[in-house]
C-alpha cells in the first residue's frame, strides 16, 4: 500500500508508555469517581516533572479484552506470511493494559458489607475470566472516606480485609485503600508508583516469554527472529530501558540483512527497515549519541537506496527515501530542541533538502510509470476498486496473489491512479521551506538562495507562475550582486519566462532590458529576438507569436496590456551594462541672465542598436531638494570613437576641421548604434531658477517605447571616480569628459555705491586746495557722502543704506545725521532710506562720523532693496525650447542620491529674502574704512609759585598749572580759544604775563602753552563728595605722579556733550540729508545732563557755603591786586552748563561721581581747546581731563604780592600776608635779611615777633627802593617758631616753615631802567 511507503504509522512515532486500565469508576455521575480519575490522569497534574511515564485508560463496563491465541507446541512447521502485524503495537499501546485496577466504594464499617463483598467477588471473577491466559495484573482499590488507622488498631478492618481477599481469591498485596480526602493527590501518587511496579513486572514477564521462543526457532525462521527482536525492543521501551531497547532494535535490523531480497518482499523489508532505523536513531538521540544516529542513518540510506523493487513502482521507492529523510530531519530538530548543538555541515536542513529532491524523483518516476501503464492497458478496461482491497494485516504486504500477473497489473494500475492524485509540488515546496529555514539558522546563505531557486522552479512546474515570479524577483538582485554570470543568466531567463507566463508586463520589460546586456551569456540573435519581443510589448501586442502562446496566456497578456501603468521604471544603476550615461554642466557658475547648458554623454553598451524616444536630465536645488526641474535633450552630436569625442572639446581644432558643423535635432525613437558616443545638449534660461541656487544633476532618464507602453531607464548622476585606477588600454570616459555636477546661479546685485572717503569734500564752500584727501581728526564731525546708483534697467524700491560701528568701537565712535545745536543725537547705527531708484538712477546720502580715539574705523555698510520678480513659466525671456515647464511635479529627486551629495554653502555675499511670491529683498554688506588722526598732544604739570615741580599741594596755597599743547593734526587748524574749567573746590586765576594771543593757523608740530594759578580750599578729606567721606582712610599715603602726559584723551560717556557747531552751519548741513530714520538709539540727552548737574550743584552749594565765601574773598583779592579782568564769549555747552549752575561747575562733579570706582585722586578739571579747520566754519572742541594732586593741611598759608614792573629809584611795596589756618595760636619770629650786594633800600621791621590768632591773618609790609637795573636779589624773609612762647614746636617744624616760605615768596625780580620822562 502507498501508505506504508509515504508515512510511518503514528503508533511508531510516539514513545511507548505502560498502559493501566481503570474499572468501576463512573466519572459521569459520581463526583468522587471523577475526582479520582482527575487525580491520576488530569492534565494539570501530569505537567509535574515527577509524574511517571504511564498511560491511563478508563475501561467501560463489560470491556472485552482481546483473546489470547493458543500457544504453539512447536514452530517447526509455522511459516508466517509477514514479519510484523499491523495491530500488534496498537494492541499493546492502547488496547491491552498491563494492569487492571478495580475501584469499589466499600467502608470497613459498612452495614451491607456482606452483600458488597459478594458483589465485588463476582466482578473480580468476571475480570479473571476475561483476562484468561493473559498476564495482566489485577488489583483492587477500596474508596473510603476516612484515612486508615495505624496497623493493629483497627481490628474490624483487618478482619474484613482478610475476608475480602479470601472471597475474591487475591493476595493481600493486590488490595489497596484510597481515602478520598483533601490529600487525594498524594495518595494517588503513591498508588501510581505501585501500579508502575506491577506494570514493570508484567512487561518483564512478557519479555521472558518472548525470549523463550528463541530456543525453538531454527535458521529458517528469520522473520520470526526479527519479529521477536522488535517485540523485545518495544517492551524494553515500555520498561524505560532504552539501552536494552536499542540493542534489540539493532539486532532486528541486522537480522533483516539475512533475508534474500526480491521484488516481492522488497517493500516489506524496506518498510520494516525504516521502522527499525527510526527507533534506533530516536533512541540514539535520546541516549546522547548523535554521531551514531547520523552514521546509522547514512548506512541505512546507502544500503537501501539501490533496492528499487518493481520497476513500474519506482516512485514508491523514491517516496520511501523521501519519508526516511524527512522523518530523520524531524528527529534531528527535536534533538536540537532538547539541547543538541548542530554544525554547519550537519543540521536538519540537509535532510529536508534531500527529502525534497526525492519527492521530485518520485514525481518523475510516477509520470513514467503512468505513461507505461497507459500504453500497455489501452485494450483492457480498468475496473475501479476500493483502496482498502489491498490491505493486509502485515506491514509492507499487499493482498496480491503471487504469480497472478493479471492481478499484479491491476494492483499497479490502482497504485498509479492513487499516485496521480497526490500533490507532489506542495510536498516539495513544504520540504524546501523547512530546509531554507534550517540553512538560514546555520548561516548557509548561498545554499539558501539555491533552495529558493529550486522552490521557484517548483512553483513554475506546478503552474503557479505568480509565486514563481515573486521568488525569482527576490533572488535576482542577490545573484546580480554576486557577479556570477552563468548563474545570473539562468535565473534571469527563468524570471523572464515566469513574467511571460503570468502576464506581468513590468517584470517582463525589466527582464528583457536586462537580458539585452552583454553580461547575459547568449548570442546576438537571441538578444535581437528579445528586443523584437520587447517592442511588441511596447506596441501593445503579446510578445510571442500566437502559435507559441497558450490561449489563457494570450488572454492574460491582452488584459494586462490594457491595464498597464506606463512608464515602467528601470534602474540602470543596478542594470548598468545596457546604456552608459553621464551628464555635466557646461559652466560651474552662471549669472541670472545667462543660458544654462548641459551635456549628456550616452553610449550603448550592448551589441544591438536601441531606439530611444527621448532623453531627460533631472535637476534639483541643492539647498531645497523638494524643487526639481526636467530638461529634455534637443540637439546631439554623434562620434564613432572616443578620440573624436575628446577632439570635439578643443574649439580651435573643431573650427579648423569642421567650420560649419551644427548639432542635429534629436528625433523621437532615434536609433542609437552600439559602440558610438552620443553627445546631447540641454539648455534653458538661468533666470527660471532661483538666485543664489546650486543646481545639481540628480537623475538621467532615457524614455523608451511608445505612448501606450513605455520604459523609463533611469540612472543616478553619481559619477564617482575611482581613487585607485588601473592602467587600461581602452580609455574611460574619465579621461575625456570633465564632469561638473553642480552649477551655481550667482545673484545680481543692482546697486553701486561711492563715497567721498579719500576723495575730499563735496562741500561747495571748500577751496580747491581742500579737494585733495582730507584726513579725519579726533573730536571732529567728519562728513561722509555716499552716492547710491542703479546701473541696471530694473526699478528698485525701498533702497536703504545701513551704517553701523564695530562693537569694539561702540564707546568711542559715533554716527549722526543731525548736527544742529539743539539736537544732540549720536547713534551706533543709522539707517538712511534713499527711497526709490528707477533705471540708471542715483541718489546721495550724507552722515557724520565723530570719533574720540585715534584709530582706523571700519564701518559696516549694508545696502538693501526690494524689487518685483516674475518667476512663472511665462516669465520674461523664458526659453521656448524647453518642452517641459520648470517646477515639474511629476519628477521627484532620488533620495539615495540626495543623501550622497552634501549641500554646498552659498558663495555669493548677496543675501536674498523672499517677502512673498512676487517680491524679494536683496542685501549686501560692505566695509567703509576711514582713518582717524590725532588733533592735539596735551601735557600738563604742576609747579610751585617759584616754578619748581610740585608733588603735594597745601590747602589754601597758590600753585601753577602749566599746560603744553602740541598740534599733531595733519591739516592746518585754527585755534579759537583754550580755557580750563576747574572743579568747584578750586579757584583759578590767570597768570597774566604768560598769556598769548592766538594766531590764525597752526601747523603740525607747533606748540602752545598756558599757565594758570590755582588754589584749593579743601583737602582730599573735605572734597565735596559723599563717596570720598567713606573712603577717607584710603587717600592717605598715596602719591600721585606729577606728570600727566595723555597723547590720546580718555574716552568718557559725557564728552560727546561738548561739541557744538554753530547754528548756521548746522542749518546748512541738514539740507544735504535725504531722509533719516533712526533704527537704534544711542542718544545722550543733554537736557537730562543739565538737570542732573543742577541738582548736584545745589547740593554742593548747601554743603560748602562757608568755603565759598573764602573762595570769593581770595579770588577777589588776587584779581584786585593784579588789576586784570577779562570777559569772553561762551559757545560751548559745557561753559553754558557752568554758568547755568551758578559757577558751581556741577558737570565736573557729575563726571567724577559717574565713575564706577572712585579714584583716590580727584579730578581738578577739564582743559578745553576750541578749534576748527582752516577756512572752515565748523567749530570743534577737544577736552583733556586733568587729574589732581594730594592736598594736605598746611601749618601756615603764605601769600606774596609784588608789582609786576619795578623801576630804578621808584619805591615799591612788598607785601607778605601770613594766614593761620589752624585752630591754635601761632607764635612766629620773622627776619628780613638784606643781601650783601645792597641792591635795595628797605624800610620796615627787620625782626618782628608775630602772634597770629586762629583763622586770622597778619600782613607784613615792606617798602623797597631799587638801586640797580637788571635781575636783583630780593631781601630774604625767614620764619621760625618762637620757642620761648611755644615750647612744643621743634626744629623739624621750622624746616617745614622754611619750605613754605621758599615756595611762596619770589627770590629775584627784574628791575627796569627809569622812565624816559624822568631822564629828561
Amino acid at each position, binding site marked *: 500500500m502507498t501508505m506504508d511507503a509515504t508515512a510511518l504509522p503514528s503508533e511508531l512515532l510516539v514513545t511507548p508508555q505502560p498502559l493501566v486500565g481503570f474499572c468501576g469508576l463512573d466519572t459521569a455521575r459520581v463526583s468522587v469517581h471523577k475526582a479520582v480519575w482527575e487525580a491520576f490522569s488530569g492534565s494539570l497534574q501530569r505537567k509535574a516533572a515527577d509524574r511517571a511515564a504511564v498511560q491511563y485508560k478508563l475501561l467501560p463496563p463489560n470491556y472485552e479484552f482481546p483473546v489470547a491465541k493458543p500457544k504453539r507446541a512447536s514452530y517447526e512447521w509455522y511459516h508466517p506470511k509477514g514479519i510484523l502485524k499491523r495491530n500488534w503495537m496498537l494492541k499493546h499501546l492502547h488496547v491491552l493494559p498491563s494492569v487492571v485496577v478495580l475501584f469499589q466504594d466499600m467502608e470497613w464499617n459498612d452495614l451491607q458489607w456482606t452483600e458488597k463483598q459478594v458483589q465485588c467477588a463476582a466482578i473480580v471473577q468476571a475480570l479473571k475470566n476475561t483476562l484468561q491466559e493473559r498476564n495482566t495484573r489485577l488489583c483492587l482499590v477500596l474508596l473510603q472516606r476516612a484515612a486508615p488507622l495505624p496497623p493493629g488498631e483497627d481490628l474490624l478492618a483487618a478482619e474484613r480485609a482478610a475476608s475480602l481477599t479470601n472471597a475474591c481469591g487475591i493476595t493481600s498485596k493486590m488490595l489497596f485503600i484510597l481515602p478520598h480526602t483533601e490529600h487525594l493527590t498524594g495518595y494517588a501518587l503513591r498508588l501510581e508508583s505501585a501500579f508502575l511496579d506491577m506494570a514493570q513486572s508484567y512487561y518483564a514477564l512478557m519479555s521472558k516469554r518472548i525470549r523463550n521462543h528463541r530456543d525453538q526457532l531454527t535458521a529458517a525462521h528469520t522473520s520470526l527472529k526479527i519479529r521477536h527482536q522488535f517485540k523485545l525492543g518495544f517492551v524494553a521501551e515500555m520498561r524505560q530501558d532504552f539501552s536494552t531497547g536499542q540493542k534489540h532494535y539493532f539486532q532486528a535490523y541486522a537480522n533483516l540483512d539475512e533475508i534474500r531480497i526480491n521484488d516481492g518482499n522488497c517493500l516489506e523489508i524496506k518498510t520494516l527497515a525504516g521502522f527499525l532505523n527510526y527507533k534506533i536513531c530516536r533512541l540514539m538521540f535520546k541516549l546522547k549519541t548523535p554521531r551514531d544516529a547520523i552514521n546509522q542513518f547514512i548506512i541505512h540510506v546507502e544500503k537501501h537506496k539501490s533496492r528499487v523493487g518493481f520497476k513500474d513502482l519506482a516512485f514508491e521507492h523514491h517516496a520511501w527515501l523521501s519519508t526516511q529523510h524527512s522523518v530523520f530531519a524531524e528527529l534531528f530538530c527535536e534533538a536540537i530542541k532538547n539541547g543538541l548543538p548542530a554544525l*554547519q*555541515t550537519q543540521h536538519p536542513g540537509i535532510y529536508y533538502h534531500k527529502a525534497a529532491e526525492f519527492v521530485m524523483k518520485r514525481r518523475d518516476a510516477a509520470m513514467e510509470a503512468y505513461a507505461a501503464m497507459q500504453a500497455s492497458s489501452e485494450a483492457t478496461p480498468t475496473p475501479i476498486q476500493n483502496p482498502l482491497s489491498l490491505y493486509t494485516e502485515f506491514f509492507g504486504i499487499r493482498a496480491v496473489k503471487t504469480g497472478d500477473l493479471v492481478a499484479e497489473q491491476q494492483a499497479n494500475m490502482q497504485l498509479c491512479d492513487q499516485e496521480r492524485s497526490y500533490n507532489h509540488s506542495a510536498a516539495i515546496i513544504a520540504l524546501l521551506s523547512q530546509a531554507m529555514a534550517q540553512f538560514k539558522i546555520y*548561516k*548557509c546563505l*548561498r545554499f539558501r*538562495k539555491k533552495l529558493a531557486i529550486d522552490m521557484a522552479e517548483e512553483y513554475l512546474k506546478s503552474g503557479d507562475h505568480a509565486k514563481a515570479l515573486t521568488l525569482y524577483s527576490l533572488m535576482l538582485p542577490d545573484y546580480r550582486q*554576486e557577479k*556570477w554570470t552563468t*548563474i545570473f543568466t*539562468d535565473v534571469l531567463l527563468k524570471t523572464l519566462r515566469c513574467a511571460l507566463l503570468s502576464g506581468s508586463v513590468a517584470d517582463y520589460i525589466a527582464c528583457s532590458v536586462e537580458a539585452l546586456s552583454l553580461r547575459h551569456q547568449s548570442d546576438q540573435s537571441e538578444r535581437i529576438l528579445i528586443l523584437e519581443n520587447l517592442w511588441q510589448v511596447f506596441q501593445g501586442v503579446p510578445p510571442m507569436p500566437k502559435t507559441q502562446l497558450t490561449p489563457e496566456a494570450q488572454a492574460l497578456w491582452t488584459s494586462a496590456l490594457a491595464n498597464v501603468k506606463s512608464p515602467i521604471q528601470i534602474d540602470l544603476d543596478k542594470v548598468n551594462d545596457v546604456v552608459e550615461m553621464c551628464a555635466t554642466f557646461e559652466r560651474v557658475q552662471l549669472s541670472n541672465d545667462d543660458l544654462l547648458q548641459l551635456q549628456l554623454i550616452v553610449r550603448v553598451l550592448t551589441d544591438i542598436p536601441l531606439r530611444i524616444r527621448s532623453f531627460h536630465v533631472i535637476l534639483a536645488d541643492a539647498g531645497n531638494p523638494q524643487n526639481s526641474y526636467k530638461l529634455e535633450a534637443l540637439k546631439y552630436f554623434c562620434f564613432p570613437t572616443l578620440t573624436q569625442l575628446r577632439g570635439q572639446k578643443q574649439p580651435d581644432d573643431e573650427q579648423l576641421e569642421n567650420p560649419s558643423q551644427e548639432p542635429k535635432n534629436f528625433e523621437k525613437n532615434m536609433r542609437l548604434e552600439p559602440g558610438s558616443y552620443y553627445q546631447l545638449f540641454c539648455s534653458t534660461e538661468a533666470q527660471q531658477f532661483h538666485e543664489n541656487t546650486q543646481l545639481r544633476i540628480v537623475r538621467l532618464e532615457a524614455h523608451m517605447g511608445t505612448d501606450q507602453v513605455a520604459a523609463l531607464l533611469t540612472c543616478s548622476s553619481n559619477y564617482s571616480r575611482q581613487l585607485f585606477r588601473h592602467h587600461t588600454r581602452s580609455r574611460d570616459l574619465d579621461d575625456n569628459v570633465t564632469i561638473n555636477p553642480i552649477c551655481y546661479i550667482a545673484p545680481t546685485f543692482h546697486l553701486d555705491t561711492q563715497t567721498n572717503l579719500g576723495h575730499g569734500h563735496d562741500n561747495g564752500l571748500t577751496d580747491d586746495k581742500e579737494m585733495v584727501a582730507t584726513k579725519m581728526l579726533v573730536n571732529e564731525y567728519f562728513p561722509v557722502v555716499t552716492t547710491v546708483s542703479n546701473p541696471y534697467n530694473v526699478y528698485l524700491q525701498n533702497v536703504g543704506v545701513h551704517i553701523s560701528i564695530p562693537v569694539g568701537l561702540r564707546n568711542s565712535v559715533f554716527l549722526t545725521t543731525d548736527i544742529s545745536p539743539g539736537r544732540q543725537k549720536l547713534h551706533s547705527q543709522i539707517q538712511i532710506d534713499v527711497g526709490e531708484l528707477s533705471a540708471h538712477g542715483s541718489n546721495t546720502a550724507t552722515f557724520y562720523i565723530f570719533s574720540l580715539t585715534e584709530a582706523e574705523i571700519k564701518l559696516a555698510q549694508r545696502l538693501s532693496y526690494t524689487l518685483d520678480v516674475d518667476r512663472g513659466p511665462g516669465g520674461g525671456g523664458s526659453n521656448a525650447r524647453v518642452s517641459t515647464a520648470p517646477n515639474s511635479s511629476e519628477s521627484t529627486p532620488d533620495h539615495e542620491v540626495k543623501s550622497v551629495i552634501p549641500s554646498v554653502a552659498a558663495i555669493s555675499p548677496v543675501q536674498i529674502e523672499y517677502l512673498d511670491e512676487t517680491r524679494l529683498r536683496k542685501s549686501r554688506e560692505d566695509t567703509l574704512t576711514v582713518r582717524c588722526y590725532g588733533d592735539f598732544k596735551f601735557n600738563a604739570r604742576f609747579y610751585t609759585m617759584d616754578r619748581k615741580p610740585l608733588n603735594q599741594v597745601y590747602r589754601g596755597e597758590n600753585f601753577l598749572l602749566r599746560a603744553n599743547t602740541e598740534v599733531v593734526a595733519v591739516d592746518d587748524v585754527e585755534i579759537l580759544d583754550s580755557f580750563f574749567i576747574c572743579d568747584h573746590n578750586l579757584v583759578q586765576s590767570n597768570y597774566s604775563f604768560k598769556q598769548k594771543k592766538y594766531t590764525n593757523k597752526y601747523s603740525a608740530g607747533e606748540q602752545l602753552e598756558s599757565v594758570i594759578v590755582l588754589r584749593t580750599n579743601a583737602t582730599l578729606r573735605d572734597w565735596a563728595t559723599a563717596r570720598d567721606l567713606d573712603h577717607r582712610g584710603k587717600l592717605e599715603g598715596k602719591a600721585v605722579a606729577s606728570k600727566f602726559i595723555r597723547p590720546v584723551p580718555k574716552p568718557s560717556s559725557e564728552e560727546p556733550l561738548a561739541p557744538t557747531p554753530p547754528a548756521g552751519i548746522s542749518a546748512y548741513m541738514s539740507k544735504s540729508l535725504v531722509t533719516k530714520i533712526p533704527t537704534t538709539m544711542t542718544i545722550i540727552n543733554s537736557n537730562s545732563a543739565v538737570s542732573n548737574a543742577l541738582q548736584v550743584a545745589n547740593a554742593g552749594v548747601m554743603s560748602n557755603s562757608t568755603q565759598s565765601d573764602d573762595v570769593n574773598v581770595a579770588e577777589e583779592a588776587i584779581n584786585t591786586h593784579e588789576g586784570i579782568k577779562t570777559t569772553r564769549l561762551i559757545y560751548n555747552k559745557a561753559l553754558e552748563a557752568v554758568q547755568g549752575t551758578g559757577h558751581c561747575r556741577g558737570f565736573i562733579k557729575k563726571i567724577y561721581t559717574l565713575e564706577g570706582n572712585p579714584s583716590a585722586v580727584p579730578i581738578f578739571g577739564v582743559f578745553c581747546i576750541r578749534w576748527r579747520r582752516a577756512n572752515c566754519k565748523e567749530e570743534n572742541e577737544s577736552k583733556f581731563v586733568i587729574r589732581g594732586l594730594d592736598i594736605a593741611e598746611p601749618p601756615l598759608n603764605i601769600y606774596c604780592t609784588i608789582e609786576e614792573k619795578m623801576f630804578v629809584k621808584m619805591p615799591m611795596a612788598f607785601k607778605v600776608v601770613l594766614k593761620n589756618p589752624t585752630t591754635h595760636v601761632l607764635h612766629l619770629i620773622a627776619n628780613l635779611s638784606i643781601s650783601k650786594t645792597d641792591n635795595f633800600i628797605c624800610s620796615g621791621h627787620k625782626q618782628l615777633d608775630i602772634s597770629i590768632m586762629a583763622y586770622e591773618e597778619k600782613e607784613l609790609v615792606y617798602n623797597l627802593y631799587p638801586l640797580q637795573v637788571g635781575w636783583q636779589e630780593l631781601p630774604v624773609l625767614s620764619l621760625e617758631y618762637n620757642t620761648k612762647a611755644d615750647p612744643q614746636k621743634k626744629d623739624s617744624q621750622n624746616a617745614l616753615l622754611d619750605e613754605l616760605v621758599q615756595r611762596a615768596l619770589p627770590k629775584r625780580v627784574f628791575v627796569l631802567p627809569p622812565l624816559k620822562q624822568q631822564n629828561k
Partner: protein
Amino acid sequence: MSTYYFVIVGQNDNPIYEKEFSTVNKELRKEDHRHLTQFIAHAALDLVDEHKWKTANMQLKSIDRFNQWFVSAFITASQIRFIIVHDNKNDEGIKNFFNEMYDTYIKNSMNAFYRINTPIKSPMFEKKSEIFGRKYLLS
C-alpha cells in the same frame, strides 16, 4: 565516467575562471549539468567560508556532498577560492591539481596587466589548466 567542474572564485564571489573536465562527450555533459554544477559550487562557498578559519592548510579537501557530487576546495592567502565539483573520489589527484593551478595562478597574477578579481583570459593559463586536468583528474 567522471566529470570535473573547476572554478576559481574571486573575493567578491565572482567567478574569474571556469573549466569543465569530462571523460565523455563535452557537449552532451555540458547540456545536462552546467547550471547544476555551478549552483553547487556557488552554494558550497558557505562551507568554504566556514572551513577556512578552522585549518592552517590551504587544502580544505572535500567539504560538501550533494547527491552524487562532491565538492573539494582550495583557498589562497588572498581569499581566492579554487573549487572542484566532481562525481568520483580522487583526493590525491585533486590535491595535486590544486597545487599546480595555484602556481599557475600566482604566475598569472604577477602579470602587470592582469588585475586581481577580473576574469583570467590568458591562453597560457588555459593551456596549463588543460594539461594538469588531463594529468591529475581524468587519468
